[in-house]
């Protein structure tokens, strides 16, 4: 059974149907990429899965539990973290306070400290700046913070929305190495990216999204060779 199963999902914004009945799944340990142009509905899908916005039809099943109607704040403690588009760190709180906020649903104090140590180990820059307000960090550092904050909840699955947005090519590489690291420590990842080349390079499988519909799906490396994908998303 897949870890995350989305079936016939439909999402409306007022009268506009943004997602027109899509189905996809993610198996434990996988990196699955959703690629597509601006406005295809990638962010809407992530927001619906994590419960930020309601769906109008279809079902979302996470680890065997139907979470379609469960409100967003309850989903974190089930093991799903969502790194939103634009990072959304708490700008006036310090780096440390941001990370602590990531562990909001956890009660095991000693364990939280251990996770914090791990996060600092992987992102030494966050430890150097732990007392600085998050709003003063650079874009790349904010992305690290958003990732560290998600890791603080000890997730089994992370939804990542455009982690490379607005970053320099060098930082994009760094961010992708962090995604790889999350994968190596056993976290499954649902990745939304406009940078299709990088996303397909790291993913196991991928879905191509066009104006609310899935038009193509398959192994990521096969998709890198697909002529349509090459033309539309890889600029080859």
């Amino acid at each position: 059974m897949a870890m995350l199963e989305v079936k016939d999902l439909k999402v409306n914004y007022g009268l506009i149907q943004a997602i027109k009945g899509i189905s996809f799944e993610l198996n434990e340990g996988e990196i699955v990429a959703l690629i597509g142009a601006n406005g295809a509905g990638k962010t809407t899908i992530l927001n619906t899965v994590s419960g930020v916005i309601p769906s109008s039809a279809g079902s979302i099943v996470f680890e065997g539990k139907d979470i379609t109607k469960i409100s967003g704040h309850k989903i974190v403690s089930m093991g799903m973290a969502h790194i939103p588009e634009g990072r959304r760190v708490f700008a006036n709180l310090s780096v440390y306070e941001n990370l602590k906020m990531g562990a909001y649903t956890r009660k095991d104090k000693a364990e939280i400290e251990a996770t914090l140590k791990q996060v600092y180990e992987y992102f030494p820059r966050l430890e150097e700046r732990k007392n600085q307000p998050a709003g003063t960090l650079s874009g790349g550092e904010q992305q690290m913070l958003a990732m560290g904050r998600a890791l603080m909840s000890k997730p089994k699955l992370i939804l990542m929305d455009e982690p490379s947005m607005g970053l320099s090519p060098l930082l994009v590489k760094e961010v992708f190495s962090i995604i790889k690291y999350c994968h190596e420590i056993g976290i499954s990842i649902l990745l939304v990216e406009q940078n299709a080349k990088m996303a397909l390079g790291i993913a196991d499988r991928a879905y191509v999204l066009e104006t609310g519909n899935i038009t193509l799906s398959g192994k990521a490396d096969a998709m890198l060779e697909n002529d349509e994908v090459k033309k539309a998303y890889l600029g080859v």
Partner: protein
Amino acid sequence: MDFLSYLINGISLGSVYAIIALGYTMVYGIAKMLNFAHGDVIMVGCYIVFMMMGKAGVPPIVAILGAVVICTVLGMGIEKLAYKPLRRATSLAVLITAIGVSYFLQNSALLIFGADSKSFTSVVNLPNLQLAGGKLTISSTTLVTVIVCIVIMLALSFFIKKTKAGQAMLAVSEDKDAAMLMGINANATISLTFAIGSCLAAIAGALFCSAYPVLTPYTGSMPGIKAFTAAVFGGIGSIPGAFIGGILLGVIEIFAKAYVSSQLSDAIVFAVLIIVLLVRPTGILGKKIHEKV
């Protein structure tokens, strides 16, 4: 000695404004709305204390506790019935609703208690403090008001810094959706904020009416507006700002009454507000947004 006595009275009045301003500023910070019915919750609190002390003859502290409980429930109820359905509506719709709730409370009080003014008995019945060989008298109400305000400020700072619910409030005030992604129940947090604000309104009401003992259905609106001014003055959304804004406003008002003209004192208070906002549009402690994009 006059100066000192005015200053102390100003600080005391300012303490009441500060306690009320906390309700405005916390609700604004977290729900991003101006709750114009906040002043009328104060009035409801005053009537409850008045009825419980006068008609039922219970001791003041019990009357205040009763008012705190009823106002807290009232505040949460207003939020749930009137504001929560408008969570995604325009801020103008919420503002108009808040004004509507304000009139609703005033008119309900008019219906229940009548238009005639009631004379409120002070909730503080301790002897006045005599200083400097009897040259300076500080009324016990004044003193208790200042102490209560300081205790509330300290307790609230502790609550926000050290408790999970307080941290949740901080997160929701910064970014409601991101807070939800951390597992924070934003609706419950907003409800809690209204509960705290309304609980403080009841306390502020009892103290205000003890110092200015005339109670009518419109009693809450002027201190409400002044406290709102104090919150803007100090930087809306900021808790220490509400404190500083409240105290300053109270002191300015009393000095204006004493040294300039008691008719003009309100005009002077609002003139100072306008000047402060011209120089510092975010208020004294208003948040600087330092976010890199």
